């Protein structure tokens, strides 16, 4: 079966979801093991994919065996970037799953099977988006991701979660439809949907590549994915949506959904339109970098004003998205910006997952949803506090955390292409993060332990849970923190793989003159 790994990665959670839906409602204790098995399977497969890509090279898989003529069937493609992203998705999803183990007696327990079904289908969407090589297929999978996200957000027990979900639905559908319009224009111009095929056609006939239709296609595809990734000024929906949904699903969505959209942007840019669009229209890429800077600034400022942990983290996501979009559009000769943002996709997935898991643990174990609830955390549970600290340091970008190295390459790209404003924004937001997180560290480190070691009044939606589930929540957090550190220390193999792909896809000679 080893030659089918790319598709099994996607199928495992799909089958898992179906089986859970079939048996789960009869016996709820089956749900968690099935889901765990499914995700573990796709985790193993994604390791296999990464290994194959690292040793052999890019891997094409033609669904239905429609390999020739090219572009008739649907093609899956795994290369240096998305194989790593597959792995990251699998890891984050596993951690979130283990965290979100539900027990009977919890309220709306009869819905828990369907929570798992939606969870797994969301993973299907993410995996599928990441590995597909077909422009329209991306749309279908985006819709799966979106629908499941609406469901998961609306499962939050706060009244506001429903409104957030509805706004998310409207915005998300508009975004996906914009993407669909873009693909339509592209299809109208070149008559193909296969990414590689489109690339070849655009490369072969420049008059098409420079036509207004293709330009409009690019604009709308970008608008679509920017809406999905909540880039400023389209970021309004994200903080509500992610901070009111149950933390079990926030741990999955917040780290991954935006990152995958960023990945889609990068994929569309360098394997459909080609990075030429960045370097050949400096005016436009200048504008995009400005938007990214705006996103960074807006995210940081919003985060400064928040007193709720989850909200603050959500605002930081907006800023991080700004990093990646800006880095992609720097258009420096050495492709350092692109490398940086690709690495940052992974790094940010890991550290956001770590931070959100930590926020979830705060809420569940200590009923702490606001900064001031965290006082004395270091003494109450040093491990949780330590893990959160690691995540925060990574967010600030302190070596040897992964956050530092992505900034290292992003700034290199920015200096080479002379985007000083971007550098200022990047460093500024790093300083803002430092302020934010050290504010929390101070509260957690100096603050008095509240005399009642019992959890606070459990906030809406985050019912305090029996102690025996504490380990299920804490273990993923610790693993995520450790991964955040390891990804930073051992960044070299990752960077090498990414650079290999970048160099091969964009044809720059590797490095310094």
């Amino acid at each position, binding site marked *: 079966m080893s030659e089918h790994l790319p598709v099994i990665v996607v199928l495992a959670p799909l089958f898992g979801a179906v089986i859970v839906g079939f048996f789960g409602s009869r016996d709820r204790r089956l749900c968690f093991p099935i889901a765990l098995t499914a995700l573990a399977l796709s985790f193993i497969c994604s390791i296999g994919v990464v290994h194959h890509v690292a040793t052999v090279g890019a891997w094409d898989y033609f669904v239905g065996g429609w390999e020739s003529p090219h572009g008739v069937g649907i093609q899956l493609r795994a290369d240096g970037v998305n194989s790593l992203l597959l792995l990251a998705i699998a890891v984050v999803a596993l951690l979130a799953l283990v965290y979100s183990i539900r027990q009977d007696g919890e309220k709306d327990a009869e819905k828990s099977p369907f929570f798992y079904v939606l969870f797994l289908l969301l993973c299907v969407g993410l995996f599928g988006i990441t590995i597909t090589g077909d422009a329209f297929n991306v749309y279908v999978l985006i819709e799966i991701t979106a629908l499941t996200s609406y469901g998961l957000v609306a499962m939050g027990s706060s009244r506001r979660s429903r409104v957030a979900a509805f706004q998310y639905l409207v915005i998300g559908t508009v975004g996906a439809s914009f993407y669909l319009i873009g693909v339509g224009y592209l299809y109208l111009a070149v008559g193909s949907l296969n990414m590689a095929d489109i690339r070849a056609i655009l490369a072969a006939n420049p008059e098409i590549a420079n036509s207004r239709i293709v330009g409009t296609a690019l604009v709308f595809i970008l608008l679509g994915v920017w809406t999905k990734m909540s880039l400023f000024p389209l970021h309004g929906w994200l903080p509500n949506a992610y901070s009111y949904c149950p933390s079990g699903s926030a741990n999955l969505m917040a780290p991954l959904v935006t990152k995958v959209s960023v990945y889609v942007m990068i994929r569309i840019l360098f394997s459909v339109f080609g990075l030429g669009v960045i370097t050949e229209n400096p005016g436009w890429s200048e504008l995009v970098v400005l938007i990214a800077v705006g996103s960074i600034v807006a995210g940081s400022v919003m985060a400064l004003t928040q007193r709720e942990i989850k909200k603050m983290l959500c605002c930081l996501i907006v800023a991080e998205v700004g990093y990646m979009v800006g880095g992609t559009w720097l258009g420096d000769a050495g492709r350092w910006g692109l490398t940086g943002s690709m690495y940052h996709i992974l790094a940010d997935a890991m550290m956001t997952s770590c931070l959100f898991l930590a926020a979830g643990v705060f809420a569940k174990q200590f009923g702490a949803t606001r900064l001031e609830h965290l006082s004395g955390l270091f003494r109450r549970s040093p491990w949780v506090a330590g893990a959160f600290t690691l995540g925060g340091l990574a967010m600030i970008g302190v070596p040897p955390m992964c956050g530092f190295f992505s900034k290292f390459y992003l*700034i*290199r790209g920015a200096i080479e292409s002379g985007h000083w404003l971007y550098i200022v924004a990047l460093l500024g937001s790093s*300083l803002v993060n*430092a302020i934010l997180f050290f504010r929390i560290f*101070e509260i957690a*480190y100096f603050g008095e332990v509240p005399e009642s070691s019992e959890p606070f009044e459990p906030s809406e939606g985050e019912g305090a849970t029996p102690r025996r589930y504490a380990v299920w929540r804490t273990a993923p957090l610790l693993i995520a923190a450790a991964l955040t550190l390891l990804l930073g220390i*051992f960044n070299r193999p990752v960077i090498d793989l990414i650079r290999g792909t970048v160099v091969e896809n964009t044809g720059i000679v590797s490095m310094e003159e």
Partner: protein
Amino acid sequence: MENSIHSYLPLWACLSSLAAVPLILLFRRETFLREAVTILAGIAKLSFVLAMLPIILQGNMIELTLFGDGSDGLVPIVFRVDGLGMVFALVASILWIPTSIYSIGYMRGLKEHSQTRFYVFFAVSLFATLGVAFAGNLLTLYVFYEILSLSTWPLVTHHQDAEARRGGRSYLVHLLGTSIAFVIPAMIYVWVKSGTLDFGGQAILADTDLSYVQGLALLLAFAFGFSKGALMPLHSWLPSAMVAPTPVSALLHAVAVVKVGVFCIIRTVLNIFGMDLLGGLGIDLVLCWIAAITLVTASLIALTQDNLKRMLAFSTIGQLSYIILGIALLTEHAALGSILHIAMHAFGKITLFFCAGAIFVATGKKQISELNGLGRRMPITFAAFAIGAASVTGLPPMGGFLSKLYLVWGAAEAHQIALLCAFLISAVLNGAYFFPVVYRAFFLPEPEMDAIHADGSCCVSGWREAPLLCVLPLAFTAIGSILLFFFPSTFYDLASIVLHGGVANP
């Protein structure tokens, strides 16, 4: 030039203290084992460093590259032990042992809380310090620099009261803020400019076409970015960090942290710009004057201080500028002097801090004005204090004399009479703020002691020294700073290796 040897010794030297961390956590209940582990780790670290010493003295380099070689344009993590790194590593690892002994005495004497955390982060910061010393390229240097800033934060804020909070906050704002805001862009700019960050061989920027403005901007970015060097106006974290327990102030804020700052600045001058480029651009004088102003101002402020530790802090700021000024003079002897001064000042200043701590442990006094006549009750402590003060001031027969001699000589060599005067003035000022303390301690009568004298009881009964574990280390370091005057050869050789190997030509 030197042939470089591949060896894992530097890595072990760094990790030996990090490896102590889990053990310390393991033995957090049994205090004795915990402290034994700390000391053993110190000994191990020192032995690793000493094992490397002969190799370096033969004019070799030890290199260790992790995560790929620099061939593909990415920056690997490189450890490289050269003379300069060796000087610093030697000082830090020698002084760690007495400091840990001292801190045992101090912490026990004051029954401090959460000592385990203290020892853990102490070990981590030593790990980072040696990492900086052995860093083979700018990235590695920066990584360890940041680890040091973070791992010392819990030590600075050890007391966890409002004052500690304030101190810790300004500590972080200064160190983290400047390094993120200045060093990162400067470092990456250097990388873009020259395509490498490696310290080996000739200076990184030696053959790049920097304009005067670019060069100046970079130099300032580094000089202020490594704000552990406490150049004015970014010095204020150092006095406020004095809220830390004295062993912390002693090792970190007299030796490790601040010396890391000046060490990085020396690296900047020698290995990033290179003396020739700096001289060619003529931006060295800017650095000189900043250092000179800091030098005099800090000494003047120190005169006005009454809190002993604050006074020491300001004198530290002054002495650091000696080192920076010395290297910025770009003459061989000045550079030699400043490298020597790293060692000499370390020994002298750590003695002074030990004494301050010992006084506090024994009598609970922090103000200079309260010290009248204490010398008769704590003769060893104050003798050591006198020695340390003399060494820092630069009187023979203390080590400090040699380094300051070279510095002055270098200043004369460079025909910078004004800077020469700055040296001399501040030397006078050093004396002016140190010796009143000694005078008070030994010659002024102690108010409530008169009664005891009246009934003629021997003042031996008045002997109230600090605990033995506090006194031994300070005696050791005091003697050390005397010995350094008579046997400076090791440091001298290392320094000359730096200058004749590291720099293009003497």
